[in-house]
């Protein structure tokens, strides 16, 4: 696989193949990230499309080879937050449409059902968290961003990001515990 730095350089020179390679490498993770943040797959696809479109129109915006994943994740998070602010209805979007399109990685039907159910529970619980906490959790766990990177994106201190993560995590653990007990 070509190094990100070379792909970016080729993209800046107008290589469509370079874009395809970058897209193939990162699109799934970005879709997952956006879907987790928005709880809405259609919205996630739009967000990812917007992020890539804006980037190819001005590829010079990104100039740190090696951090492309983090940078794209940040773009996705920013775009999701914009959408969230504009459209409050997204905050309570049902997750059914997301659930039936999750990528199944198990072969046994029984395990598939169990996994689907588990994903549904986690997605539902995530969606009930305040957006900042959900964003922190998702960026940390799915986006593999550091607290410093998340803090920069959220324009807060790294400590605040860490607190959001811990509050979110505690709440999520309680919610998942309640579901099991219920």
């Amino acid at each position, binding site marked *: 696989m070509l190094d990100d730095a*070379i792909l970016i350089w080729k993209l800046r020179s107008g290589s*469509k193949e370079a874009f*395809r390679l970058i897209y193939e490498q990162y699109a799934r993770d970005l879709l997952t990230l956006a879907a*987790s943040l928005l709880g809405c797959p259609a919205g996630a*696809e739009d967000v990812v499309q917007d992020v890539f*479109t804006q980037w190819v129109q001005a590829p010079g915006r990104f100039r740190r080879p090696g951090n492309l994943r983090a940078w794209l994740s940040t773009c996705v998070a920013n775009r999701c937050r914009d959408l969230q602010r504009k459209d409050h209805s997204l905050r309570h979007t049902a997750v059914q449409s997301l659930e039936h399109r999750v990528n199944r990685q198990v072969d046994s039907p029984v395990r598939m059902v169990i996994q689907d159910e588990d994903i549904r529970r986690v997605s539902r619980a995530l969606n009930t968290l305040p957006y900042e906490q959900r964003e922190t959790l998702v960026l940390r*766990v799915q986006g593999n961003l550091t607290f410093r990177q998340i803090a920069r994106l959220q324009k807060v201190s790294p400590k605040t990001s860490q607190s959001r993560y811990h509050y979110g995590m505690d709440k999520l653990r309680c919610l*998942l*515990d309640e579901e099991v007990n219920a």
Partner: protein
Amino acid sequence: MKPSKQSVEKRIRGIQYDASPETHDKVIGSVLSAMTSCSQKHSGASALLGNLIMKSPVTKLAFAAVLVTAAIFGFQHVGSSSIAWADVVAQFNAVPYFSATVYIKEDVASDPKQMEVWMSRDRRTRIRIGTQVVFGNKGHVIKTFDFQQRQVAAPDPYAEQFMERLSRVEPFSLDAVIRVMFQGDMQDVTPLVNPDAVISQDMVVFDIDLPGTPEWVRIWALRESRLPVRFKIWDPRSGDGTDVVFEYANEQSDAFFDPNAFETQLQGRQNRSPVNMAYANLKDPGGKAMTPEDMFAQSGYHLPDIKQVGITPDGAVWIIADKGRNRMPDGRNVYGFSRLEDDLDREYVRVYASHVTLADQSQQVFVPAGYPFDQRIPGKLIVICEADDGRVRVEHELIGTVELTQWQQDQSWPDDTIRDPENTFRLSMAWKHCAQKRYDEAEKILVTIPGTPNESRMALERERVRLRMLFIQAAYAEAVAMGDGLMPAMKKEYQRWKGSSADPSLFTDYLTALACLGQVDRVKDLWQEIKATKPELSATLNRLAREHIAESTAYSFELCLRTMVPQMSQKAHLSIEQLDALFDIDIKHNEAFTHLGFWDWNPEFDQPEYKNWERHLADLSEYFQTHALPENMVLLERDKKEALKANQYKMPNIASHYVHNFDTHLKAYLKTYRYPESAGRVRIEAHIPEVILNHDLIYKPETPYHEMLRFLMDHFGLEVVEVNEPRTVWVAHYDGRALKDFKQVKAPVSPRVRDANGQLKAGVMSSSSSGGWDVSYLFQRFMRDQNSECKATGILIHDETGLAKIQEDTGMGPRLSRECPCWTGPDAPAIARKWFGDEFGITFTEETRTVTTYVIRDKAD
């Protein structure tokens, strides 16, 4: 119960969303269409194109490249609006050669990337970027080398782009530069004098404003000589930019631009310094040294100037010499003298070496092998100075020797010189004897060191040597008992401020012995306790010093783990999982352990062949759930052929039997029957067919290997019989000469070449070992190679040299040679005779003797 944080994280990670292929196609199509329309929109808008072009760091370098190139070939086509600029152009034309250093900064905060460019008037180019040297001609890359890896490499994208841009500037003129850079849209770019930027009369400054972008280019030139000395490309929006600094001189030699000349040097063994390679064949116009080789050419070697010499009552020879440092061509230094000899033919060991930088004074102590009990007084001392670059296979270059007949007998060294007390040399020798398993010799010294470990550091060290000796001899219970008693003193020593970081390696033998006794929990507790112990620090240390010491201590712990973890794996058979838990590490993903092997894992085991084997073992285990295990052995042929590499022999959940993988030619196994004692004496009858095995032998752990081979033979209808028959035997004798350092003994024929069939030629190196080969091994390899076709007709060697015993008795160690030659082919006997004679004083008398041959044949009915 609430799920754990780790479990929740895992479940969040488990959420994987993917769009349908149609959606992906739609998104890609839409983005590509936006990309196309964007580029079409900008093709007529020079401003944005300029912006896009200049935004790329690579392009900035490329722009620097064409400016640089244009500089040397003259800006003849520049508009005539500025007379001063025309003068600069004229001066450029007179310059035969130049070099430039290009620094590119990707944004305001980034460190600049550096590229050095040398170019001749006929457009041969050499670039150094990172660890690469790139050779080009007329803008095309000819060859690229990585001087650190010492091999040909793919060119760095920056260098490649730089060259590519150069190739497009044809003919060389500013117009061509502009056309290349801006695709014909912006030709009206002329350097103009910027009077505001001029700060002195001897400098003139030109600016180029790039239309449609706030970026600009500035050129500084000397007013008197009219030569430009610096270019700068700058983006005021982000603070990124490129600086080009020029140097002018006479042209470098042809060899400097010749990739073949460079490659020859790269393959040479003498240029170990990367500086020598990066700047190979470069001559500084001012005559200054550019590389360690240049420095060496100026200084050469010299003998240190001996100021004082003495021998202590215990027999330690101390030497203090001025001008102690010798620089080697590879940039490293050697200090003082490397060896000492005397007229009593004693072997000396260097036990102390120090160098005072400012005074360039070397201080060294040598002790005879029998120290401190060999107190004979020599009549002459010979000190030897050698250039030792640390490579074991390379003979050290002799700088010179000094013979001494006068010294201060029974005197210790002056107070302000050698820092260690003489007792420490006793310990050094005890450690040395211990490492060479001469435990009696070590103990003989240790009993002379008085005191108790709690009161004396020397006494503690004495006990540590004893603990090590127990550990090496696998007397783990005794080692642990001793370690238990030493722990308070070791902890005290660990905590004591010694002027540097604390050393946890004090505890390694004790902890490893504990692990070998299965006391893993205790190891864990003690390790945690040691890590939690705060070493004492001097009150005068400032914050930076404390941070440095903390960092060094952390590194010491890492080094300690690098020693202890593999030992616990190999000796205590702790698994990777156990070791991870014990030391709170992740061995499989920790770079410190990537080069190490463990009994149950090494990085190579992640290869598919090993994974196949692990799965295969699991399959076999499952098979034996429903089938009886054999009473002794069973050979199972596999259903399918697949790539297997065996890294273990245990089947999961089965302890009573192991598995041996037989997966190559049957004869390859048979020829090892009873090796090494059967070397040269196995005959496989010619009619036995070639069979490639794909079998598992299930056997009991205590089964000897030759029994396994007999079982294999039996399976294929073969048997081994022992027959006595006359054979040509060389009886080996040793003439008693002093043997060379084994590291200096190499195979008789070099380079290492093969014949037309791909076989190694007689006399070339077939194997090498940093630990050296002993006489038995060298003879066995000769006999084995002589019998490579398994006819049992080659020459045998009967060892009557007595070398093994002589070496053991004298404590020289069993090693004779660093390399073992290949002895196949008709020329081998003659070469071998000469080599053994020249190198070791081993001669052979030829006899015919009756010896036992192992004949492998069809089983008799």
